[in-house]
């Protein structure tokens, strides 16, 4: 096997066997399976649903579930590696062919890859590490009417509650701002937005 695009490591033995089994599927069966796979890749949290769909596919096409799961594991190696390495659909096609999949099926899969890659890339980016991510912001503002030191006050206060994800837990941070601080905060945030937009 020549150099593969999607991985630098040697591929497990079972993969070529699984590719041969795949070649046995009809075009229709292969396209149905591909659809299942991309459905799972674009919604990786829906594991239950994916497993149910796989077992339905197995029953409908009279394939045993065990070998089917192994085949699926092998296939998934390619899109996962391709995503990490920003591979083009050409490179994905070439990799499948190098692994032993028929040209027809490899081209079909590569096409589907091209269609789905923007969604998949966005998902991968979304999974990237974020430090103390801001999840939510709540606010209220009002007027301080009086205090123990001043009978009549009449000053405006703004209170913000920031919900921050620290590791796996959420933390609430409460802050109070005066009016001038609020305007300067708003101004700075608008500058940040301009800066972020210029880099997008």
């Amino acid at each position, binding site marked *: 096997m020549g150099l593969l695009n999607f991985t630098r490591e040697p591929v497990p033995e079972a993969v070529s066997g699984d590719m041969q089994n795949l070649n046995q599927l009809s075009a229709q069966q292969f396209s149905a399976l591909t659809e299942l796979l991309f459905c799972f890749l674009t919604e990786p949290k829906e594991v239950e649903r994916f497993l149910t769909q796989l077992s339905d596919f197995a029953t409908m096409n009279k394939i045993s579930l065990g070998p089917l799961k192994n085949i699926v594991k092998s296939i998934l190696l390619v899109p996962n590696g391709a995503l990490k390495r920003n591979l083009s659909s050409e490179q994905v096609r070439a990799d499948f062919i190098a692994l032993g999949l028929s040209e027809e099926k490899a081209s079909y899969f590569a096409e589907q890859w091209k269609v789905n890659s923007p969604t998949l890339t966005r998902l991968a980016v979304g999974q990237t590490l974020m430090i*103390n991510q801001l999840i939510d912001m709540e606010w209220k503002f009002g007027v301080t009417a009086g205090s123990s030191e001043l009978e009549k006050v009449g000053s405006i206060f703004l209170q913000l509650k920031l919900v921050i994800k620290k590791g796996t837990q959420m933390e609430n*941070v409460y802050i109070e701002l005066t009016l001038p601080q609020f305007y300067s905060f708003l101004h700075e945030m608008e500058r940040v937005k301009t800066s972020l937009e210029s880099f997008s």
Partner: protein
Amino acid sequence: MAAVREAEFAALQSLLRAPSRDAVRQLCQQCFSSPPAGLAALAQRVCPGLTAGPEEAEQLVFALHNLTRHVVYRGLTKAEDILSLFPENFHQNLKNLLTKIILENITAWRNEAQASQISLPRLVDMDWRVDIKTSSDSISRMAVPTCLLQLKIQEDVALCGNSPVVSALTVELSKETLDTMLEGLGRIRDQLSAVANK
């Protein structure tokens, strides 16, 4: 702040023994700024300057504290209002001097009271930077801009006394989060101007 009592005005007369007008001025400021708990210690410090016994000094310091705080509480800004607080037979010159000192300081004292009132932790400073994420374990090449915002937050002034605790919180915002935040801040601004224009 309860109104100043007769006995307290009597105690104020000890000020007549103060070495100078500036000494009275300084004492007024110290008495206002000191929290009730610190007045006893303050009284001990001013004893020698006023040639007064410890008990007399304490009564004076409490009286002055109550008087200045009462004026600030009520928000009195006119000389007549302050003069009318004093009893009929109060020493005329001292009354005028105290009124003058209070009027000089009233704005600063009011600001001081407002700055030290109870509140949620306050924002004291903010800094930001924009980073471009170029690579991660889930995707090896990308160019995603992200914002890091550092907020310096000071705990309630009343709890910290003279050593305010300032903590720094660094928060990361994606472009989408920032857009949503700006939407919220814009709504606050609109509501604020609606209230201001009423």
